């Protein structure tokens, strides 16, 4: 019995010291990690929002829009040139062959795609990873597209009767990306006024829109 208690105390003491170490390291690194995440986000946004389009701090000019079907709220980053909104950027995700594919979309106020980039995926190397801008220019095929261009049935790979190239050997991955981009454009169309509302009354516009939908 005494031995058992000793063991329990020993393990408890160990667990406590481990917790102290973890809490201190977390506390020490939290700021730096937040900063890195910010830099990553900025780097991905600048890829879909051409730098000549804006002169503001993208990360400082945001509105949040409630996600579809009770999904998580979407943070929309807005590009402005001398105060006028020239584009918005936000994240969407799709489900690929190897798990979720996270994308960032850049859309101009008229609803045309300024660019699409994959920011995280776990698709098969050599097949599905062709969606990555570092591995191929397939993803550039979305630039300049909009909801009606191609028409809705064209938002598919050629094999399925659509307009977009397939990736040799991969079917599920491009399908997932095309669907995610299309849904992102629909999301923009549905929340356009909230996304493009002037910074000061962005909240009001979102509320107005919510009222209108209700």
């Amino acid at each position: 019995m005494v031995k058992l208690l000793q063991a329990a105390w020993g393990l408890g003491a160990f667990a406590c010291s481990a917790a102290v170490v973890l809490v201190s390291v977390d506390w020490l690194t939290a700021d730096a990690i937040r900063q890195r995440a910010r830099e990553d986000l900025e780097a991905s946004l600048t890829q879909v929002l051409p730098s000549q389009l804006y002169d503001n701090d993208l990360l400082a000019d945001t509105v949040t829009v409630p996600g579809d079907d009770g999904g998580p709220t979407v943070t929309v980053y807005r590009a402005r040139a001398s105060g006028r909104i020239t584009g918005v950027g936000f994240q969407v995700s799709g489900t690929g062959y190897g798990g979720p594919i996270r994308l960032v979309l850049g859309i101009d106020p008229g609803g045309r795609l300024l660019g699409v980039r994959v920011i995280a995926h776990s698709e098969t190397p050599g097949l599905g990873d062709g969606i990555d801008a570092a591995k191929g220019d397939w993803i550039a095929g979305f630039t300049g597209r909009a909801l009606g261009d191609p028409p809705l049935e064209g938002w598919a790979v050629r094999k399925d009767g659509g307009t977009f190239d397939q990736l040799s050997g991969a079917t599920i991955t491009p399908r997932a990306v095309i669907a995610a981009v299309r849904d992102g454009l629909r999301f923009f169309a549905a929340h356009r006024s909230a996304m493009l509302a002037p910074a000061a009354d962005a909240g009001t516009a979102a509320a107005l829109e919510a009222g209108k939908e209700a």
Partner: protein
Amino acid sequence: MAASTSDLRTIVGDGLWHRNAVFGQMLSLCPTMAVTNTATNGLGMGLATLVVLTGSNLLVAGLRRTIPTDIRIPAFVLVIATLVTVVELVMNAWLHELFKVLGLFIPLIVVNCLILGRAESFASRHTVPAALVDALAMGFGFTAALVVIGAVRELLGSGTLFADAARLLGPGFAFLEVEVIPDFAGVLVMVLPPGGFLALGFLLAGKRLLDRRAARRRVPAPMVTPAAGAAE
């Protein structure tokens, strides 16, 4: 228990070759299969494991008289899990480029049985310096194995060697990146999981062959003369 030079030599030889984590003990095959689609990934995972293994061996050897025998395994697991989390947080904060490449694999180190294996079978029974040597030898042995498997798979699968090494190690290492066979589409299967097993199988066979040849040469060692050696 002072480690003599010959002991140290055994530790180093075991870690690098005779009891090599992958090719000798067949341990840690899960991370091995997962990351070795390029030599660069293998190198990154190997080095990250080396860091955790060194920290874990040092802590376990240092605490070996403090940890009650009955609870040593949970205590080791706690030490390893804490270390891995610390490494993950620190890399995310200050080695962010490396973290973006290896981030997925770092949590895998927690379940790498090589680390718990060395804690239980070596570090908990030896002095801190001996445990350090063991960790370095095992860690570098593991790294070498991962790099070799990664190089074979990358060469056959994509025709390159150390692709993206500059992204992992910094621009100074761009010289490592070689396109060995230009315009070679590669044998895709080598990059996929089955290729990992194929490469591992052939490399294991190769090591056995070398070991057997070495053993054959060692047996008649006292009588070996240059002439006898040539008869082989």
